[in-house]
């Protein structure tokens, strides 16, 4: 278990620091955040055609109310945590890659839901928006990460011949 935590923390800090560097921000974070806003706008426009997106902003053209998707709300940190958790856990590489890719989709799907609910909460009630934005959705996204990781380690245990203990040792 100590090995898992140590590797996890090293990978987490390394990827997190890399994420904050200008090249990664420019090449990954900013384009992804814009894409997230566009996906959210497209989904909302299916039943509310006045919703538009530009850059990282999701806005209602009629009321003018909008939300800006900032760091922490684009799901990238959550994906970094999951990636570190998957990479630190002893499993075959093909399973790790599958876990990271499927996990990214699962986290971002929930994150789109977060963006859309926050968009409507901002229009409805500022206090509830603040509560959901600062506390509720932060916790829900992390629970999502944890559940995805638990499902993945379950998948690994089910599809490998060894039972891998949480401390990294393997038993036949």
């Amino acid at each position, binding site marked *: 278990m100590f090995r898992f935590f140590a590797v996890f923390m090293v990978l987490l800090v390394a990827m997190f620091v890399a994420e904050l560097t200008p090249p990664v921000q420019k090449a990954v974070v900013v384009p992804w955040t814009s894409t997230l806003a566009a996906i959210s706008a497209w989904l909302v426009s299916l039943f509310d055609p006045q919703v538009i997106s530009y850059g990282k902003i999701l806005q209602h053209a009629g009321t003018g109310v909008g939300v800006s998707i900032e760091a922490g709300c684009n799901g990238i940190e959550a994906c970094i945590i999951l990636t570190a958790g998957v990479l630190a856990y002893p499993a075959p590489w093909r399973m790790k890659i599958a876990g990271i890719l499927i996990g990214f989709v699962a986290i971002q799907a929930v994150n789109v839901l977060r963006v859309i609910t926050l968009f409507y909460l901002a229009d409805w009630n500022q206090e509830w928006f603040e509560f959901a934005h600062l506390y509720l959705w932060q*916790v829900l996204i*992390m629970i999502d990460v944890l*559940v995805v990781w638990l499902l993945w380690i379950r998948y*690994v245990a089910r599809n490998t011949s060894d039972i891998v203990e949480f401390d990294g040792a393997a038993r036949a």
Partner: protein
Amino acid sequence: MQRGLSVVGGFFVRAILWLVPALALWFWARDWVVAPVAWLVERAMLFWFSVWVYGTELAGTEQTLLTTVQVPHPSGRAAELLVDTNVLMYCYGLPMLLALLLASRAHGIWWKLPAGALAMWPLQAWGVVFDFLIQIGAHHARFSTPITGFTPFQVDLFGVAYQLGYLVLPTLAPVMLWLLFERRFIGMVMFDAALDGATRSRR
């Protein structure tokens, strides 16, 4: 497969259901929740930056850092720079840990929750301390640098530490503590899955 899925699925449903009352209780008690963290923040700021910090004030969940950094006031006279932050933004790990412990039907919640809270206080204080430092060192650099002496590299480090303390630690800390406390549950998930895999391969 169904049984294995239900271990994680049941945990997920229970976690969401327990989160509602846990968050409600935590928010109701928010002024008490932030008190120990705010105290730690004040001690840390006074210990490391006593040259330009002379205390903090806590009003509800808002903590204000009192500094001797001089800033121009619209009246033409000099004023002391005060920066504030909402300490509660760093403290939502407690209801999350409670929901996770209840969801995994943990034994000994009576000691695991206080122990978890105690372990999270320094990490929550980390977030608040670097929130203050990034405000002082970056947002008010023009006035603060002569007295704080922060170099651009130090301010960059504050930025990374602040982002870590704001974006990662508040939610990661309760999960790591839960993993530490509930290795039994992880073992149960893996054993159930392995059993399921063995049953499937026999068919």
